[in-house]
């Protein structure tokens, strides 16, 4: 019999030191992981490597000569720097929402709230908004300049903390609710947050409790409908690079840098004890609880961590654009990110990234281009760029009906969905169990260094799937591990 021994203790220890060594282990483990991935999944890894190389070199090549190929050599317009930067921003958001919706199975329809919180965090901490005070610290503005000016590199962790805190605050009372009620509550939160930012432009209140008196008169807290601008652009002090919208491809690499961190972090979360707990909850909350998972705490963690990704994306977006208003943060943005997650493949990081890249391209480059072309042929024809959500809505309906697991599905998730959509659930479950236990064991072994395989017998599922299901080479590879 094969026995899976799952090491329970965190190999890196607890607390901040544990986290730091975790991050270190991730960074130094990359070459090792890469070599192993290449050995085990050669085609996939090569494809991924090629994609990465294209992505990394694209902005530079684009600025050199590729842009002139747009619509000449290539039939379609190539995405410009702004679009690619937004691909990164939405990529971070999609990965964050994937933690909530994909890993833990909680539908969050108000994800945009945390995006807004991240953006306003950047706006509050790096703009002349608080004109009566002057705090300038390592920023690209002269000393004594009015307002608070902190560097982007400090704002991002603050935005992570604040967005995560709000995620936890929203989650704490609501996560006991059933799935659809939770969706509506989060939607409500997503609507309230921008309203608050829009309406707190002129705050007057008088509060006194005994000796304590707090009185403000006509204080502009949030900039109202106009929002806050200008916001300092991210700035790299010694290299003297400014990452704003007119800086060409520089912000693309800033976004890519943050995105890579988001990917690594999410990948490790997925394979951690917490990640397994999320998936257990997603599949069967009651069963997970019976197995000793603290469901409320685990779901809260998903909410807070997912929210913190949106915090990163929001602070990047606001700093990059140099302005923020509550109009940026509408329900439709929450849904756009949700479509990215669903389209790409809910639960699969590479899938949701693909969704983010594809949909951002469609939204920001493809539809405006089609609109422009149509304008020349038929000026009275409605511009498809203004009706982008007609297409996105249709995508949602069609995906739910024909391919709910997305285009790059998470194997486990696809199996769950298939089990639900087939009429003969019973038969299907047997089949999935057979395929799954084999496939998942393999995947888990590839993925998780904390699983030690004590290979003294045939793996589970062998009897059902036949002797040819597992090739001898793979078994050898696993023994090496």
């Amino acid at each position: 019999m094969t026995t899976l021994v799952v090491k329970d203790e965190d190999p890196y220890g607890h607390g901040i030191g544990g986290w730091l060594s975790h991050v270190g282990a991730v960074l130094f483990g990359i070459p090792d992981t890469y070599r192993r991935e290449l050995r085990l999944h050669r085609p996939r890894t090569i494809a991924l490597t090629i994609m990465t190389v294209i992505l990394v070199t694209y902005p530079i090549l684009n600025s050199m000569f590729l842009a002139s190929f747009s619509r000449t050599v290539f039939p379609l317009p190539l995405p410009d720097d702004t679009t690619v930067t937004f691909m990164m921003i939405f990529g971070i958001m999609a990965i964050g929402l994937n933690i909530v919706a994909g890993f833990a199975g909680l539908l969050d329809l108000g994800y945009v709230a945390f995006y807004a919180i991240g953006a306003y965090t950047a706006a509050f901490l790096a703009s002349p908004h608080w004109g009566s005070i002057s705090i300038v610290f390592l920023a690209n503005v002269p000393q004594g300049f009015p307002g608070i000016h902190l560097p982007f590199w400090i704002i991002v962790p603050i935005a992570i903390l604040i967005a995560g805190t709000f995620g936890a605050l929203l989650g704490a009372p609501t996560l006991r609710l059933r799935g659809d009620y939770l969706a509506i509550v989060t939607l409500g939160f997503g609507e309230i947050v921008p309203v608050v930012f829009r309406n707190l432009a002129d705050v007057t209140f008088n509060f006194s409790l005994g000796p304590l008196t707090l009185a403000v008169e006509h204080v502009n807290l949030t900039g109202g409908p106009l929002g806050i601008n200008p916001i300092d652009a991210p700035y790299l002090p010694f290299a003297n690079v400014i990452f704003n919208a007119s800086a060409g491809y520089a912000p693309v690499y800033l976004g890519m840098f943050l995105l890579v961190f988001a990917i690594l972090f999410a990948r490790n979360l997925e394979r951690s004890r917490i990640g397994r707990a999320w998936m257990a909850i997603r599949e069967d909350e009651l069963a997970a609880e019976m197995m000793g998972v603290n469901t409320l705490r685990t779901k809260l963690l998903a909410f807070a961590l997912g929210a913190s990704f949106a915090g990163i994306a929001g602070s990047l977006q606001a700093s990059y654009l140099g302005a923020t208003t509550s109009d940026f943060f509408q329900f439709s943005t929450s849904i756009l990110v949700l479509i990215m997650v669903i389209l790409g493949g809910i639960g699969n990081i590479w899938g949701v990234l693909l969704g983010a890249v594809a949909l951002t391209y469609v939204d920001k480059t493809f539809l405006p281009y089609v609109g422009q072309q149509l304008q020349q042929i038929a000026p009275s024809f409605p511009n498809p760029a203004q009706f982008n959500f007609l297409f996105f809505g249709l995508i949602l309906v069609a995906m739910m009906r024909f391919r709910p697991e997305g285009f790059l599905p998470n194997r486990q998730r696809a199996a769950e969905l298939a089990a639900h959509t087939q009429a003969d659930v019973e038969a299907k479950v047997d089949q999935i169990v057979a395929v799954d236990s084999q496939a998942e064991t393999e995947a888990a072994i590839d993925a998780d260094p904390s699983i030690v395989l004590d290979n003294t017998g045939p793996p589970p599922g062998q009897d059902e799937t036949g002797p040819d299901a597992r090739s001898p080479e793979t078994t050898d590879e696993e023994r090496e591990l």
Partner: protein
Amino acid sequence: MDQVIQTFIIGLSNGLIFALVALGYTLVYGIIELINFAHGDLFMLGSMIALFLIASVFGLSASTPALQLVGVILLVIAITMIATAAINVTIERIAYRPLRHAPKLAPLISAIGMSFVLQNIANLIAGPANKSIDNLFPTTNLLSVFGIETIAVTFQQAFVAVVTIPLLIALTWFVDKTRQGRAMRATAQDPDTAGLMGVDVNRTIALTFLIGGALAGAAGVVQILYNNVTVWNLGFRFGLNAFTSAVLGGIGNLSGAVVGALVLGQINAFSDRYLSANWTNAIVFAVLIAVLVFKPTGLLGQQLADRA
């Protein structure tokens, strides 16, 4: 005091319109546990259809003779109800029925997609600007008959009550007393068992969408004749108000939806009047969140669907 009463009257007319839409949410939730996200947008389509009929097809105006006005309005209500009912049944067929056995969140996501589709179709056809018609009713104060001048009840407000209250009564009668109503209640309790007892479950669900759609259409007509304005994204705000009403009253509970709608109408009116219209939406959402967190069964509890 007069001002409070006046606000109350406005709240009452708001609430009655909410009730018609809220019933659509509660009926559908009661029977298939789906938050029909597109329902608010169906209501918006209803108001658009009514606007088109009134302004372009029949060319009604304030100078139209009273008898003709009443006749045509009844006709407009009938046509709009049929149209929205047909649209709702079609949507159910396309977007929800294939997902009957999918995980519960799949139809919700499909409904959200449908909501955007309906909004953008309206935007595509009617354009992004507000669409308005002239007030068709006399502007006299009905209460001046009784010698009251400080509080006003307009013809429009009376019209809201005259249309909605009979519809609410008719619906209650239908669900409580008819054979089809019994089939609906049975399906809500347990679709599988209802099927075994000879209820055509698919047909009953389609019927529920038909009724909900018809009510949303009626609400659309009332809305356009009461507020005289509609816009492509009206359904989102309105739908969430109506959904909050349904939750407040206890989703799945028909009389609860009406009670919830009346309460929410007042919350809207008083918030608009005494706080600021800017905050009304936030307050409605806060009410929604508070009800869901602290009393998810609502004020009157869940009657139709007690499967939570």
